[in-house]
């Protein structure tokens, strides 16, 4: 290293505390990663071979377009499941989200109970709900609808209660000053403030539900996933890739539509 010419100020060092925190974070993370790789038997070499295998496998998957007419029925069922799951989830989330917001529910116990219920509901992924409900409610679209309803309810109530808590308290006080009770305050002061954002969230959850509804059939909860699994078990890779292409186009189209509608809302 050349000596710095006199007069050029050196770049100041970061404070020792900050450096220690950064070093400790990095060390913790590296240790966690090493333990994880050791425990799961994962090596960086797997990454390379896995990617190679993946593309070789994909290369064999030439879509069999003759299968296409048999895709539409299950695809329609998939959309029905996503639509009903979103709708029922929204209907159930609407009362619950006000119970889980601190500014519309003052009773501590109600607030704590509704929030805990939502936290537990949210900790289970949609596919797991479907896997649990398929043996209970008979294989078919019904467990799919119920699974997506539970999942949408949990997500919407959480996002909704955050929106309600961020609402301007002014209109609420004004309505309360006229002698209105809690329900009137919600209807006339809170709902107009949060309606647009909530509609946008519902569309967002619909997007998630379309993605979920194409795969819940893998565990017997209806929709195109059931056909996908059946074709896969027969090693009919041509049919499988036809289904995958249709799923891909469907998800892209619904996403684009929903993003456009949401951009109009807010």
């Amino acid at each position: 290293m050349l000596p710095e010419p006199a007069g050029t100020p050196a770049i100041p060092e970061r404070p020792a505390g900050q450096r220690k925190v950064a070093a400790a974070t990095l060390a913790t993370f590296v240790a966690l990663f090493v333990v994880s790789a050791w425990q799961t038997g994962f090596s960086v070499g797997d990454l390379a071979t896995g990617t190679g295998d993946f593309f070789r496998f994909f290369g064999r998957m030439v879509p069999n377009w003759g299968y296409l007419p048999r895709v539409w029925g299950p695809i329609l069922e998939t959309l029905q499941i996503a639509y009903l799951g979103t709708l029922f989830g929204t209907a159930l989330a609407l009362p619950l989200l006000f119970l889980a917001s601190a500014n519309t529910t003052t009773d501590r116990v109600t607030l704590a109970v509704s929030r805990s219920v939502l936290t537990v509901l949210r900790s289970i992924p949609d596919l797991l709900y479907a896997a649990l409900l398929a043996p209970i409610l008979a294989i078919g679209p019904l467990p799919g609808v119920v699974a997506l309803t539970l999942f949408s309810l949990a997500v919407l109530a959480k996002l909704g209660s955050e929106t309600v808590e961020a609402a301007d308290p002014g209109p609420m006080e004004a309505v309360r000053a006229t002698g209105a009770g809690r329900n009137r305050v919600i209807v006339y002061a809170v709902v107009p403030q949060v309606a647009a954002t909530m509609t946008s969230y519902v569309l967002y959850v619909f997007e998630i539900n379309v993605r979920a509804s194409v795969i819940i059939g893998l565990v017997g909860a209806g929709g195109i996933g059931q056909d996908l699994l059946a074709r896969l078990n027969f090693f009919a890779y041509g049919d499988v890739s036809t289904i995958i292409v249709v799923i891909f186009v469907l998800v892209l189209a619904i996403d684009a539509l929903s993003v456009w509608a949401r951009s109009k809302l807010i």
Partner: protein
Amino acid sequence: MPDAATASQVPTPPPRVRRANAARAGLVVTILLLAVVTTIALDLPSAERVLRGLRNNAVPLLRGFVQPRWEIAPLAFSSMAETFFMAVIGTTIGAILAFPLSFLAAGNLLGGTRFAIPGKTVLVAIRTFPEILLAIIFVAATGPGPTAGIMAMGIHSIGFLGKIFADVIEGIDPGPNEAIRAAGGGALQVFVWSVIPQVLPEFASNVLYRFEINLRAATVLGLVGAGGIGLPLIQRLQFRRWEEVSMLLLVIIAFVIVVDALSGRIRRRLV
């Protein structure tokens, strides 16, 4: 009405508002009609079958929540630990690979939004592909086990993190970039001393957020044989051993809630 003369009247809304209200009512009616048609067209089981299913399966499942089978607790914890480790590696792979890609999808650094289109398209394509489908393909291509799940999670995370990273980069303050350029710094100096310090806390926060999502996703990857707690779970579901299913579910719920809470705390301190 008798008190119409004394009580103040709510004024009738102007025509524009009335038209908007009518349109909104029309939309609601359409949505509800569509729901009725959709429900009727759906292939639903008989009420009797549903009731029988609830009695035979839901009752033992709920009983299992009250009296969990502690015999399988060691299995539940060890497979949940594997799930956790899978999520750690999957998220790390996703974050490392998303990092360079995100700069190719950020319009402001490439000198124009149109130069970011190829990068953004790649990210959308990756995101559209459901994770569990990737897992199925990896299981078919490389065999069952946690590696298949890690690969699926890693690839899917690239799509998600790449998009969020690109959004963060597009939102940075151009001031420090200009300051460094004015001091004679080149593109590399701008990148190291202005872009990276601005985006790093947001990146870290989003990686943690993705980790929360991946932990949930990793619990179901085992359903298709890609490692983690999903495998013992689906086996017990197939044999209808509901009390053991409840034990596994309790471990999943507890683990996810604790990790969410911890990760949320760290994220709040980061940004």
